[in-house]
């Protein structure tokens, strides 16, 4: 009997020892950074991962693309700041970004700084998950008066500022100027002649097909949101709207929306665009010279420009323009990247100050971010010679004035998914644009009803 009892006793003792070790080690791990001179804050972002490529690089002129610029900005901040702050980056792929951020919140462990789109900010503000920032940023020397109105509106909800705006990213038309020249669609200066009405769009597309045998358009389609953003752009260009101004009901079952979707679908039907392309294949079609115009955002301008200049791609002469106005008004779909400070259960004032200092640094380097192709949000940057000297900017800086977004309502990701699905349904299930949009209308209305509070 004694022998039998010895083993469990030994086991229990081992277990107690193990727990004691874990507790001691955990406490030491927790207390160490607080006693050290450095403050480490965590940064959650999308834009891809390139920390290996830019290890130790702090020279901002060497950074290329969204990932390069934000990574080098972070490296440079870590190296330059004199407050002992070190920013540790965690990168999440774009499509999973908000799911992961939500999961981190739910686990009680949100990052200290996070990037976000203006379109999702209302969900986080409604639940009091991000900190109001006006006072902190002003104390840190950020002049909000320098931000253009739409940028301020993007981060202001019910009169309170909840984020630092970083850019506008809007739809643009990316153009292969060689194909346009071959089709006779360039002006005397060599700039692309873009259509000013749906009829002209079809005429240009037909001319492109006749003279070059290529597609006029490449649109990332399938389940990509690009057709949805194009649809919204064309609805706004007709003076219509996607939602009612108060954001309480959808305006999708309207003549303007039907015209817009019919136009889009006619482009596919008549072979001027291929709806079988996803994002990667649409980009490939454009870079390999199979399509004259790619509908895509501001985020790729620097990269396409570099590709065209490298001589490695079939695309040699690259142009990029504000989305042409096909109807009576000017408008282009846009969203914004913004920086937020998530609310923590147990706020650490040192980390908070460090995070604000990092935002101040990002504020100071808006021009570097604008290099990627995104439109800057500060008037001083927009007016600066350095910005004007960036390639192609003169052809699309006007986008900043016509950029439009949905009103600050919750559940915009779900709404976008519904519109994507219903556009898909008109392609695959034989629904007419009117039927698809009616379905979208009722589904979006359902989503709008459930806004939390």
């Amino acid at each position: 009997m004694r022998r039998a009892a010895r083993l469990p006793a030994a086991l229990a003792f081992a277990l107690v020892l193990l727990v004691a070790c874990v507790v001691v080690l955990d406490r030491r791990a927790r207390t160490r950074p607080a006693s050290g001179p450095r403050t480490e804050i965590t940064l959650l972002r999308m834009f891809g991962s390139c920390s290996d490529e830019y290890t130790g690089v702090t020279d901002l002129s060497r950074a290329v693309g969204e990932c390069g610029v934000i990574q080098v900005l972070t490296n440079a901040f870590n190296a330059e700041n004199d407050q002992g702050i070190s920013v540790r980056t965690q990168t999440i792929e774009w499509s999973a970004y908000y799911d992961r951020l939500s999961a981190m919140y739910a686990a009680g462990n949100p990052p200290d700084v996070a990037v976000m789109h203006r379109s999702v900010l209302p969900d986080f503000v409604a639940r009091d998950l991000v900190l109001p920032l006006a006072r902190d940023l002003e104390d840190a020397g950020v002049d909000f008066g320098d931000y253009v109105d739409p940028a301020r509106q993007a981060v202001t909800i019910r009169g309170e500022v909840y984020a630092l705006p970083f850019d506008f990213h809007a739809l643009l038309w990316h153009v292969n100027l060689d194909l346009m020249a071959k089709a006779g669609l360039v002006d005397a200066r060599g700039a692309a002649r873009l259509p000013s009405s749906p009829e002209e769009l079809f005429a240009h597309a037909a001319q492109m097909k006749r003279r070059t045998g290529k597609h006029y358009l490449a649109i990332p389609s399938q389940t990509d949101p690009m057709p949805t953003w194009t649809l919204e752009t064309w609805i706004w260009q007709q003076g219509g709207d996607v939602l009612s101004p108060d954001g309480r009901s959808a305006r999708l079952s309207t003549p303007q929306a039907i015209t817009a979707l019919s136009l889009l679908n006619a482009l596919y039907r008549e072979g001027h665009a291929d709806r079988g392309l996803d994002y990667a294949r649409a980009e490939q079609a454009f870079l390999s010279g199979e399509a004259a115009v790619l509908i895509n955002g501001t985020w790729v301008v620097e990269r396409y420009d570099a590709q065209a200049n490298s001589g490695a791609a079939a695309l040699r002469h690259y142009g990029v323009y504000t989305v042409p106005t096909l109807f009576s008004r000017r408008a282009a779909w846009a969203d914004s990247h913004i920086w937020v400070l998530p609310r923590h259960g147990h706020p650490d004032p040192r980390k908070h100050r460090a995070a604000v200092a990092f935002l101040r640094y990002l504020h100071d380097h808006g021009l570097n971010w604008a290099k990627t192709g995104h439109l800057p949000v500060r008037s001083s940057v927009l007016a600066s010679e350095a910005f004007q000297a960036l390639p192609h900017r003169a052809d699309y800086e006007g986008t900043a004035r016509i950029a439009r977004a949905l009103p600050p309502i919750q559940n915009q990701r779900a709404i976008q998914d519904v519109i994507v699905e219903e556009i898909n349904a008109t392609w695959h299930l034989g629904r007419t644009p009117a039927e698809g949009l009616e379905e979208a209308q009722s589904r979006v209305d359902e989503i709008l009803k459930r806004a939390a509070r």
Partner: protein
Amino acid sequence: MPVRIRRSFRAPGSLAAFLFLAPFLAFYGAFLVVPLLLGAWMSLHRWELLGDLRAYCGSGNYLRMLRDPLFRSSLVHSAQFTLMAVPTITAVALFLALVMNRPHRLYAALRSIFFASGALSVTAVTLIWLMVLNPSRGLFARFMAALGFAPVDLLADPRLAMPALVVTTLWWGIGFPMVLFLAGLQQIPRELYEAAKLDHASPWTTFRRITLPSLRRTILLVLVVEVILQFQVFGQVLLMTRGGPANRTRVLVQYIYETSFRDWQVGYAASMSMLLLLVMSVASFVQLRLSRPGD
């Protein structure tokens, strides 16, 4: 005093047994029982992932399920997928097991190869199959072109996307049922086959009269396990079609995931998970009943 002796031996023995079981029970309780109960509790609430909305709504979420066309369609899609995938996987696994149930080294190597894909993560598998099915440069498109057909984008076709997902799943998950069948085949006594040979039974008759009946239990096991597994299909769908085209491949687990992580409605998602649990429980119950000895 025989009773006393027994007791005094049993008490410390059961303590030891309990101590040995304790780590497992602790994990089982913390990671299975507690979440299950919490899930059931959440399913009775309007409960948001973030923020502090926790409003009791009784059967509200369950009633909403009945009215929700997206829930219905994703349930149907999961069932469709299961109905396509389970018989295919079972039949192909059985076929492969029959072919490879031979002692030669070549077959041992082949068995390892077929089993190997199962070790990959869903991300790797979908990457491979996205490349294979790429309509401009993929293996499948080249194959079609070689036969003189125009390339088809299977994942963008509302009728073919689901079968394409089934093929991907088949390639990924064939190893495990194949091993089960191989184990089953090894247990069939050699004498039965020798007797059949003496009687000049044809291979087909031997298969039908000896192999299949002897494998009955294994086949049932594979069917049930696969139903449980395939009804929970998620990763392949999310990564390959995102539920498209036109919502034709959105499955139940994907809808649960979107409801909780995109829409933050974990209460409603929990109620759908409870329904999924019910389906799984029925399948498991069937398996338990069928695997009872002497049945």
